């Protein structure tokens, strides 16, 4: 009788077309997933996976990470912007015909991929964009976007760092919102995923 190791069944098989969001800060995987429009797509969330990734000689996130496998999905610039805010050290892999064709990661990691031999596809920098769209909700209840609906747009006034909060300004009511008050269109607040530590210089 052939013995089968049950762990083989539980491993996630590589996807052929789609997106893998790797190295997400633990606790942010499902938050990010909620923001994505994954209806009808096969999605496999991985929470609290082990990782040996180090930053400045320390294990990243105490050796844990979340990882999302989305088959056939695509990310908008708004989605990528949200990932950069919630989990700035994540690595977004676009996969086509079972190969990674595009990697989007923080500047430091991009430098690693650019000099390494293992990866030869496209590279993009994961950074907080200068503007965001419908992914955010205006926190001002009197804003026309909350009263009469319609598209939203936000200017990123201050990009977050280790010591400074993210500040966004609504393009309609011109009110500015800091850190914890910032809300996503799902109703989730930035504070729901705890304080993000920004290692980025």
């Amino acid at each position, binding site marked *: 009788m052939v013995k089968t190791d049950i762990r083989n069944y539980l491993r996630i098989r590589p996807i052929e077309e789609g997106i893998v969001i790797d190295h997400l800060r633990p606790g942010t995987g499902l938050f990010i997933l909620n923001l994505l429009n994954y209806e009808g797509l096969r999605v496999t969330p991985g929470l609290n996976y082990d990782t040996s990734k180090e930053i400045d000689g320390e294990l990243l996130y105490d050796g844990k990470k979340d990882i999302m496998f989305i088959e056939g999905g695509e990310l908008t610039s708004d989605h990528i912007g949200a990932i950069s805010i919630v989990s700035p050290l994540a690595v977004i892999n676009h996969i086509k015909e079972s190969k990674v064709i595009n990697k989007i990661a923080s500047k430091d990691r991009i430098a690693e991929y650019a000099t390494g031999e293992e990866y030869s596809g496209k590279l993009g920098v994961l950074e907080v964009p200068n503007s965001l769209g419908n992914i955010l909700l205006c926190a001002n209840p009197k804003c026309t976007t909350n009263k009469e609906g319609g598209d939203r747009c936000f200017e990123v006034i201050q990009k977050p760092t280790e010591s400074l909060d993210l500040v966004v300004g*609504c393009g309609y009511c011109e009110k500015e919102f*800091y850190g914890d008050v910032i809300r996503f269109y799902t109703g989730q607040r930035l504070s729901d995923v705890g304080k993000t530590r920004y290692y980025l210089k």
Partner: protein
Amino acid sequence: MVKITSKEKIITSFKGRHVISIRDFKKEELDLILDQAEILEKIPRAEKCKILDGYHLGIIFYEPSTRTKISFTRAADTLGMKWEGIADPKTSSASKGETLRDTVRNLVGYEFDALVIRHNDDGSVRRASEYSHYPNKHLEFPGEPIPILNGGDGSNQHPTQTMLDLYTIKESQGTMDSLTYLFHNDLKNGRTIHSLAEALLLYQPKKVYFCSSSRLKMPRHIISKYKKSDIEFEEVSRYEDVLPEVDILYDTRPQLERENFTDDLKERIKSMYRIRAHTIKEKAKESMKIMHPLPRNQNLMSPEEECDDLPQAYYFKQAHNGLFVRQALLCLVKGVSF
């Protein structure tokens, strides 16, 4: 080859332009509006009554207004422009739940040449401006979008008020630069004070004081803009202490109806942050000017009326200046300049 000056370029850029937020304007553009207003103030009424003859101004006012509505309609009248529209939302389809953008989509088809809108939702006039062209993209586009002028959108912007404030400062002091400003009373809720404080960042004031109760302080985002600028500023709690230095005292009505304060605290704020005529007489420069966006609170009438006869009182002239600034804007957005 004819050389086009930068002033001509700015004048050309005004034609058909929306006036939504003071943040959309550069210093040179604001200066041009003030220059045009000054010229219009000097032109006799009989000579300017044909300037915009044949044009039609649409008015959509969903909130009460005295000065803004009447000065806009008088500006239109005095330039020979006809006007009509919605003066009360109860008499329009807004009472049936029609959105502002649908109202604007309708009115742009009725051959208005400009629309003035006041609405109670923050940001609503910018949204409305996105619908100021022909309402169906599949039909032939009939021409340029019609300019929309913001007459106040909720607690957000009131750009024409800021322009008339700047005009009043320039008229009374000759410049916006090298002056000491004192913003006084409710610095938290007043949209006019926020817009003017932001507009002054384009100039070089000597110093700016923000004087209010600790509960009604200038919002953090404006303070952070001052911190990033080269302008010297200070938050103080008593206007009397800094009054001798001040050139422009900009007072506001405490909008205590927006705050959840106890009656006792409301009374204390009303009493403490009250401009008193004897203090002005004792401590202020003769050349200092008191400005106020009006209306002033009924319960503040007495002490303020005391101030009305002081040489420093300038708030009624400030309100009158709204006519010339609005005349200038109507001319500029229709491509008329002097």
